């Protein structure tokens, strides 16, 4: 064997074997199951079942709408917060406290965080009580079991990922670019849109990919905040594997989710690359 190949191969043998056996092989089993029926004959029947049914299209649409809105809202809230943390906070101790506040949710389970929102968003929850007492609404808002409720919980769970991705890009930004732009007479707004935003775009995109992929496949948060009224793709998948035990049909649903995720990741990566070259 080529001498230059022996070392890397020896070092990669164990990790690659582990991933082939416990990652690729199980995924292959799912894909094969999705292409066959209970009699183990090859068929595309499972996909026809998924894609020919209006209900599934609605679930797919809801899943995507929630994931896209979660990404958008996280970006709109995350950019200002990242900006504030990296460029506006003067007092170091307060900055440390802020970063800790940002990271604590990341270190707690989705369950715990969603549970907090179940308490807050309920009919008699803190939010409704406050709004009622303040005379802002006449009767409690229904938030649990609506897409708005799921969105509030999802943004909450995923926002820290966005803030860290953008914050890292902002903190690496070379101050001389902005100074040059300002020296050349650009107003702050123009400097932001023509200099800072394009330079932090890779961070924005990696944050968006992270948030979107986690949102589109999220199970716990939608399951807890939907109150059984709304279904997303991951909930259908879980149902097939945990109670219906139809691995063929569940496999087809899993492959649909996988494909959607990979297409979005590839698409976002492409935007990042073309903009990065420009």
């Amino acid at each position, binding site marked *: 064997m080529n001498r230059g*190949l022996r070392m*890397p191969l020896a*070092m*990669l043998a164990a*990790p*690659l074997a*582990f*991933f082939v056996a*416990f*990652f690729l092989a*199980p*995924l292959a089993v*799912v894909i094969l199951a999705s292409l066959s029926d209970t009699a183990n004959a090859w068929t595309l029947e499972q996909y026809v079942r998924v894609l020919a049914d209006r209900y599934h299209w609605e679930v797919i649409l809801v899943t995507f709408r929630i994931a896209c809105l979660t990404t958008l809202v996280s970006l709109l*809230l*995350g950019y*200002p*917060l990242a*900006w*504030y*943390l*990296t460029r*506006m906070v003067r007092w170091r101790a307060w*900055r*440390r406290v*802020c970063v*800790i*506040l*940002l*990271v*604590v*949710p990341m*270190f*707690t*389970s*989705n*369950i*715990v*965080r969603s*549970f*907090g929102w*179940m308490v*807050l968003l309920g009919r008699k929850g803190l939010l409704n009580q406050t709004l009622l007492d303040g005379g802002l609404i006449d009767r409690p808002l229904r938030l649990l079991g609506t897409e708005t409720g799921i969105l509030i919980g999802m943004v909450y769970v995923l*926002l820290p990922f966005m803030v*860290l991705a953008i*914050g*890292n890009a902002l*903190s*690496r*930004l070379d101050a001389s670019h902005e100074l040059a732009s300002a020296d050349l007479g650009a107003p702050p707004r123009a400097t932001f849109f023509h200099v800072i935003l394009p330079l932090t775009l890779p961070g924005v995109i990696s944050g968006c*990919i992270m948030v979107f*992929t986690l949102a589109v*496949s999220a*199970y*716990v948060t939608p399951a807890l905040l939907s109150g059984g009224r709304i279904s997303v793709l*991951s909930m259908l*998948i879980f149902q097939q594997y*945990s109670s219906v035990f139809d*691995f063929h049909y569940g496999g087809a649903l*899993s492959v649909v989710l*996988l494909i959607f995720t990979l297409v979005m990741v590839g698409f976002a990566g492409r935007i990042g690359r073309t903009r990065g070259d420009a």
Partner: protein
Amino acid sequence: MPARLLLRLVAWATLAYLLLPLLVILGASLTASPYLAFPPQGWTLDWYRQMLADPSYRAAFATSSQLALAATVLAVLLSVPAALAIARYRFPGRQAASALLMSPLVLPHIVLGAALLQFGGYFGLVRSFPALLIGHTVIVAPFVLRAVLTLLTPEQRALEEASYDLGASPWSTFWRVVLPQIRPGIVTGSIFAFISSWINVELSVFNTSTALNTIPVKLFNYVQYTIDPLIAAVSGATIVAAVLAILVLDFIGLDLLPDRK
């Protein structure tokens, strides 16, 4: 300047939004009422006492900790050599190997959990600690790989080669030069790996049972049917654990969001 003030207000509101649900849980876990109440009605630590007295919670905490620790150790053992091979050598299939080892970061965990359940079924490897460990190792290994890879820079390489030039063996170069250089990456990666395993539901939910349960899955199954101060106390305990972990990280000087240069 109004724009700056607006930005500041948005940032503060967002921070409050991040803090609110955690405060609600911690508050609700201290209520003296027999039902969940926020603001708490009277103060008591009874719910925490009740949690500690329940062997099933103690067992779940133990399972979660052992699982996270074992998965992290396994992830380090697999990812450190992989990172060195990927950063040091040019060989055919290098990109593919790296993509494969990183892909659990973007693939839906629920799909992987389902896949491992079905796959494990062929070998009788379901609802057992090894089944949980395998799945958790797959999803946490990329954190270590990514953290170590970012430290394997050309500057790091130069020191490694200096060590060889000075006559050190590969073994002693690894222990005395490379390992100290990548140690911060191993530490950061391990922390993210440990946490991701510790809080995972999507993967564990397929391979847990009443006898073998992790804390998040136990919470998940409970919260769907009953909401009481006891469950708030269990959640509160995990929040306290998270805060302690972060304070330790802060203390050892890990900066999650680097300061501006």
